[in-house]
């Protein structure tokens, strides 16, 4: 029983880990503009993130060391350093977006401007970093984040034409008034929102923080293969309610409030409360995950002692970098640069740099020196290579599409 409960809690954590501000904004934005015509991207993304997270989790449980701790030995210091710099910057920009996300959700509740909430959220992140045990941290935001299922229930409440929805999903078409480049630009943005690089950094480093060993490989796999698909179902739910409630009214998503609007239409105040609670939990969880991932990658590259579960004095450089990153992210957020724009760009940059994240994982997951008999099988390698082609194609197409569509306008 305790075992089942432990597994279930892990899955809830993974669902919370999948959802973040990038998802919440792009799902609603895309649902309102493109209906269900990009649901297939979510399916593609869930299979991809599951494939690579399983590899990263397997490497960490078998070797006791996360992928980015090992990769320097295989690619050499120059390429690895370039990779770390890119990963750090993308993680840190995503952190800015997540901080703003929590603050925007609190603004919806309080009518206090989000910029005033940003420092408060950062202080809370500091307290969690300093005081809350690792597992507790994950469970609190994982369980609270389940309130987001109100978006899925809202699909039923809005009473859709199921036959029409099914045909929209299975026979996607570009809506009238939208160009094909714009459609593909948003397909890449959605891919980036759902295959965010920090998820694999956090998952593999988290396995080490939990002190998982080979006997917990099953835990890692259940987390990935149940948690991410359920997270994907949530994402499709958000797209569907935006399509049902926002598209007919011609509403474009330019603010987090519009993400919540369909739930308000379906369930009224209680719906708003649950949606905002879920959003605060999911984005705050992502604040912690992107923050820690930023310093995980750097510490692991240089061989510093690292870990949130350690005493701060036992991992001083790691802790100092984490605090510095948090302060810098607050600074960038307070420039009052449009938070929705920051979100879209962080997601876009995540997509454009995905090959840098995935190549090392594929290399290490095939290395018998580290993994022995636990190296990739045919299925993992087959999917791994296919997804490497997919994310590389997306990364190459990202810049031309950004220019042609002027950022998706």
């Amino acid at each position, binding site marked *: 029983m305790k075992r089942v409960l432990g597994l279930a809690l892990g899955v809830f954590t993974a669902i919370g880990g999948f959802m973040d501000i990038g998802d919440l904004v792009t799902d609603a934005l895309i649902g309102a503009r493109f209906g269900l015509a990009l649901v297939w991207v979510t399916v593609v993304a869930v299979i991809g993130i599951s494939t690579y997270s399983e590899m990263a989790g397997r490497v960490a449980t078998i070797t006791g060391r996360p992928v980015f701790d090992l990769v320097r030995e295989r690619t050499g*210091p120059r390429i690895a350093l370039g990779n770390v710099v890119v990963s750090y910057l993308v993680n840190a920009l995503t952190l800015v977006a997540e901080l703003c996300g929590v603050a925007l959700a609190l603004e919806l509740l309080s009518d206090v401007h989000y910029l005033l909430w940003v420092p408060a959220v950062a202080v809370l992140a500091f307290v969690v970093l300093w005081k809350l045990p690792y597992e507790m941290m994950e469970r609190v935001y994982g369980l609270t984040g389940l309130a987001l299922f109100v978006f899925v229930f809202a699909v039923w409440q809005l009473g859709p034409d199921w036959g029409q929805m099914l045909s929209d999903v299975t026979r996607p078409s570009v809506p009238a008034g939208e160009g094909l480049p714009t459609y593909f630009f948003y397909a890449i943005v959605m891919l980036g929102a759902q295959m965010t690089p920090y998820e694999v950094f956090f998952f593999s480093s988290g396995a080490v923080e939990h002190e998982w060993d080979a006997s917990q490989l099953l835990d890692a796999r259940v987390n990935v293969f149940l948690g991410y698909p359920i997270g994907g179902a949530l994402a499709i739910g958000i797209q569907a309610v935006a399509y049902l409630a926002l598209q007919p009214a011609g509403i474009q998503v330019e603010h987090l409030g519009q993400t919540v609007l369909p739930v308000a239409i379906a369930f009224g105040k209680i719906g708003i409360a649950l949606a905002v609670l879920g959003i605060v939990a999911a984005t705050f969880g992502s604040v912690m995950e992107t923050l820690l991932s930023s310093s995980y990658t750097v510490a692991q590259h*240089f061989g510093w002692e690292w870990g949130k579960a350690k005493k*701060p004095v036992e991992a*001083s450089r790691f*802790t100092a970098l984490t605090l510095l990153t948090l302060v810098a992210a607050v600074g960038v957020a307070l420039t009052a640069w449009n938070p929705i724009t920051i979100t879209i760009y962080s997601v876009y940059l995540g997509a454009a740099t995905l090959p840098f994240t995935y190549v090392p994982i594929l290399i290490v997951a095939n290395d018998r020196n*580290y993994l022995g008999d636990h190296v990739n099988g045919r299925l993992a390698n087959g999917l791994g290579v296919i997804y490497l082609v997919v994310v590389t194609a997306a990364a190459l197409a990202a810049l031309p599409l950004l220019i042609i569509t002027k950022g998706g306008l």
Partner: protein
Amino acid sequence: MHAGLDLLDRHVVDRDGRAVGKVDDLEIECAEDGTVEVTALLLGPEALGRRIGGALGRSMGGIAARFSGDPEPARIGLELVEELDIVIKLKHPLHQLPVGRFERWVREHVIEPLPGATDATG
């Protein structure tokens, strides 16, 4: 043993498993009979900077040298190595090794002054 593949960039831990750093470079001696032997592991940004090369490598080594007041990287003689595996384990605890100046400086000047820095969060 192929030094370049088997030693470079490996993770180094102390006797108790605490992180010491990465093998950033190697000290190699050529004997008179022409044999080449690895004599020590070199750790720290000074060594890594030299290997990365270019303006970036030079500035990395330069900044590290300015902070530590010593242009040479930390040197760990091979006689201090307990075990060579996917992780290199040393015979001594961290405080007896000639490494960790930067970690110590950050601990004493940045982390320790903060309240609760010595509490484990778990």
